[in-house]
């Protein structure tokens, strides 16, 4: 007896997200959304942090490790105790674009959580002994990170795509960290940890107006505009051979490919979003079905679109067994080439359309997911309208539109790539199918 897979029921219209918003006198934009699912609240404070200064990565990395180690009013332990009493936690995230202070806590304790934010933002003291201890730890963590093949590969790709640019480096050099002092952190904090241009998002079991009032009350003493920073333009992607980074004895090769992409506000973006999904952006994609489910070359190949302040990018990553490195690259180029030169099927397009719409709803279905999504959107200059209208945009994408953007952005000739692995085993076979270049001695992508 053969059973039939049940059809889908009628779609449910997603609930509209309503946000309350206020721009404080300091320039801080505060957005609050009520989500009473659990008695918790999520807070995201996003502060623009892009800078071209050569020391910025070291300074900002150590700043993010020490901003919670003391204020004029509380020491490190006191801050941590106060947060635990709220059922809370603050974590500090950093990338080239922004500093992100994320917190969660019991919803009823939001005013106290915001008071801790205010203390840290207005009075972080960067005690010299804490800075010294965290500097040592950061150096050790960098050593550990640089031993990870995935980190080496991601850094090498970033450098390949944006050499000499802040986007081209994700870990600071040991020398620049060693030279970072508490005074430099205090200076960076004074220059850049400023409310004008920052966005605070609050989502949870809160009354939005009360949450805005609480934010205004707690943060009214945090004032000022950031010192102006020179923002370097993103370099044009070079036409470069596949870079081989030697990792002797490696049992796998970490493959990474990257290229330019469209920003979320571009009218052709929905088509590119769907093209990426069809290529390698979800499990049922061509690339995953080929090199994992058919060939068994790899465990978790995946491609994605990433959005930074200065531009968006496409990237594809797979860690493959050393002996199948060249065949895996061949299949990758085959699938990219097929995207660029042949139309996708209606079934493929319909599948990714539903996937994109469904997972967008899933990503905003929790307090934490909604808070992070809103923080990223507002940080990119997008609004709730973009979120609400995106399913309708996805619904309208055609096969021809996917073909057009795939040819422009997913063609193998539009991408740069790196292969981190045992060069003695992979260089020969790779050179047979693509132009390759060996990384020079000491080239670590940094």
């Amino acid at each position, binding site marked *: 007896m053969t059973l*039939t*897979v*049940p*059809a*889908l*029921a*009628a*779609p*449910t219209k*997603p*609930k509209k997200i309503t946000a309350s918003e206020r721009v404080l006198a300091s320039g801080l934009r505060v957005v609050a959304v009520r989500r009473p*699912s*659990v*008695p*918790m609240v999520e807070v995201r404070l996003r502060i623009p942090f892009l800078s071209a200064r050569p020391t910025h990565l070291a300074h900002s990395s150590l700043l993010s490790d020490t901003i919670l180690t003391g204020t004029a009013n509380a020491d*490190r*332990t006191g801050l*941590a*105790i106060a947060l*635990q*009493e*709220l*059922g*809370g936690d603050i974590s500090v995230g950093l990338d080239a674009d922004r500093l992100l202070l994320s917190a969660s806590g*019991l919803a*009823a304790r939001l005013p106290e959580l915001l008071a801790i934010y205010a203390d840290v933002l207005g009075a972080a003291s960067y005690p010299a002994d804490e800075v010294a*201890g965290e500097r*040592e*730890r950061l150096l*050790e963590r960098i*050593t*550990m990170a*640089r*031993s*990870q*093949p*995935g980190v080496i590969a991601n850094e090498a790709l970033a450098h390949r795509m944006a050499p000499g640019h802040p986007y081209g480096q994700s870990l600071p050099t040991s020398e620049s960290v060693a030279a970072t002092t508490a005074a430099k952190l205090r200076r960076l904090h004074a220059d850049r940890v400023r409310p004008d241009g920052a966005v605070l998002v609050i989502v949870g079991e809160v009354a939005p107006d009360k949450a805005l009032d609480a934010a205004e009350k707690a943060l009214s003493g945090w004032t000022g505009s950031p010192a102006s920073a020179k923002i370097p333009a993103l370099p044009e992607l070079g036409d470069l051979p596949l870079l081989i980074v030697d990792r002797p004895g490696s*049992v796998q090769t970490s493959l990474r490919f990257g290229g330019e992409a469209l920003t979320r506000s571009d009218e052709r973006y929905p088509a590119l979003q769907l093209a990426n999904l069809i290529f390698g952006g*979800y*499990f*049922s994609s061509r690339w995953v079905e080929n090199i*994992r*489910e*058919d060939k*068994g*070359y790899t*465990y*978790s190949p995946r491609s994605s679109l990433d959005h930074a302040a200065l531009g968006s990018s496409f990237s594809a990553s797979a*860690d493959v*067994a050393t002996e199948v490195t060249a065949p895996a690259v061949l299949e990758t180029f085959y699938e990219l080439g097929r995207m660029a030169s042949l139309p996708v099927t209606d079934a493929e397009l*319909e599948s990714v359309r*539903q*996937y994109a719409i*469904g*997972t967008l*709803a*899933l990503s905003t*279905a*929790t*307090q934490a997911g909604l808070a992070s999504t809103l923080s990223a959107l507002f940080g990119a200059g997008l609004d709730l309208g973009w979120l609400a209208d995106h399913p309708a945009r996805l619904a309208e994408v055609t096969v021809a539109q996917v073909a057009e953007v795939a040819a422009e952005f997913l063609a193998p000739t539009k991408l740069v790539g790196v292969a981190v692995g045992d060069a003695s085993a992979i260089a020969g076979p790779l050179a047979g199918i693509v132009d390759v270049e060996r990384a020079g001695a000491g080239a670590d992508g940094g």
Partner: protein
Amino acid sequence: VPSKLRTAALPAPSFDLVKHKLGNGLRVVVAPDRSSPVVGIAVYYDVGFRSEPEGRTGFAHLFEHLMFQGSENLEKLEHFRYVQSSGGVFNGSTHLDYTNYFESLPSRAFERGLFLEADRMRSPRITDENMANQIAVVKEEIRVNVMNRPYGGFPWLVLPPVLYDTFPNAHNGYGGFEDLSSASVDDAAEFFNSYYAPANAVLSIAGDVDADAAMDLIESHFGGIKRRKKPVRPDFAEPPLTSERRETVTDALAPMPAIALGYRVPNPGDDLHVYLATVLLAEILSDGDASRLQRGLVQSKRLVTDVSAYLGTFGDPLEERDPTRLNITAHYSDARNTEAVLAGIDVELDRLAQNGTEPGELDRVRTKLAATIFRELDQVLNRSLEFAKFELLFGDAVLITELPKPLAQVSDADIRAAAARLTPSGRAVVELVPGAQA
């Protein structure tokens, strides 16, 4: 400093749970929540890598992969495609004592999700070709997570063989390549017949469904699956250690030393109150900058780069039966400090055993733990996973939402007793020696 709030007074979220058992023995938990058009579906089978036979290390995990390779009415790749083209996500994972399969879907695809799970519970389609393909995929998974990665599998693969003596508790749950390579379709059929009976599973639904309608659909999709014998779970208990065990492993890729300590802990199924004291103890030891090991070893003595104390193989304190363990791991830069790191840990444990907690310490740690649980339960999928897990392991799905109550009953004396149980003679210590130049 904000005023104190007792955990007992926390506003816990409550979910209406409906439980039912089908004629074939499948246990069902449904927790409706109509606030978002999303549904979570989870199936937990009462078999993990602790139960795999000798000579078949890694089989429970390999079998989890095979459950995605097609079933009675579905070709290879169709499971993934049906979930994702419905707007959903899926996954599965293999643990010490269970294996789970789950989807998060728009509620319009609820019945489709039930069909997909029922079809593979009825009969997965396992062929030589799919077996060979997934053995290759699993080997790449092990390469990327263990063999090609510094600190890969540390400590979950290196601690058990030192802490335990019997194969079920001590062996490598990812599997040796030799065992994986020799796995056959017949092995899979036998494993399925033994362990994947409906009576050995829990189906859990959370989210945008009506309880009665959901039960009817569940009956219509799962009710027809033939009843099979529920396997008898062996007793995996081992006698307590009588003296400290030490072992050294070399990691050719690691640039810095690391250490892992594994302590036997009380049986979670025996006395939950006693076990929860150890759960809170782990939080007191390493959660956040105010915790004992962070303050003592990281901030004050600056002996280690990081330190972490947690229960169970993967850090979920309530996902394993007896025997389970408390782990303490640390990375540090100078191999000459190994004994100082151990001594530093012993000092902190001894202080807790002798002097107990500081005023307010226990309350704030359990407030934080309760808040972490609430946050976890916000996601519909997590809710279906947690309810299934608690129903499977404790026979009580709702226990997860009620944990703040028994947590509030843990006293300072309980914490002292829990710390006093963590003696050097009851632990295994594995020292990781770095083989790479820093």
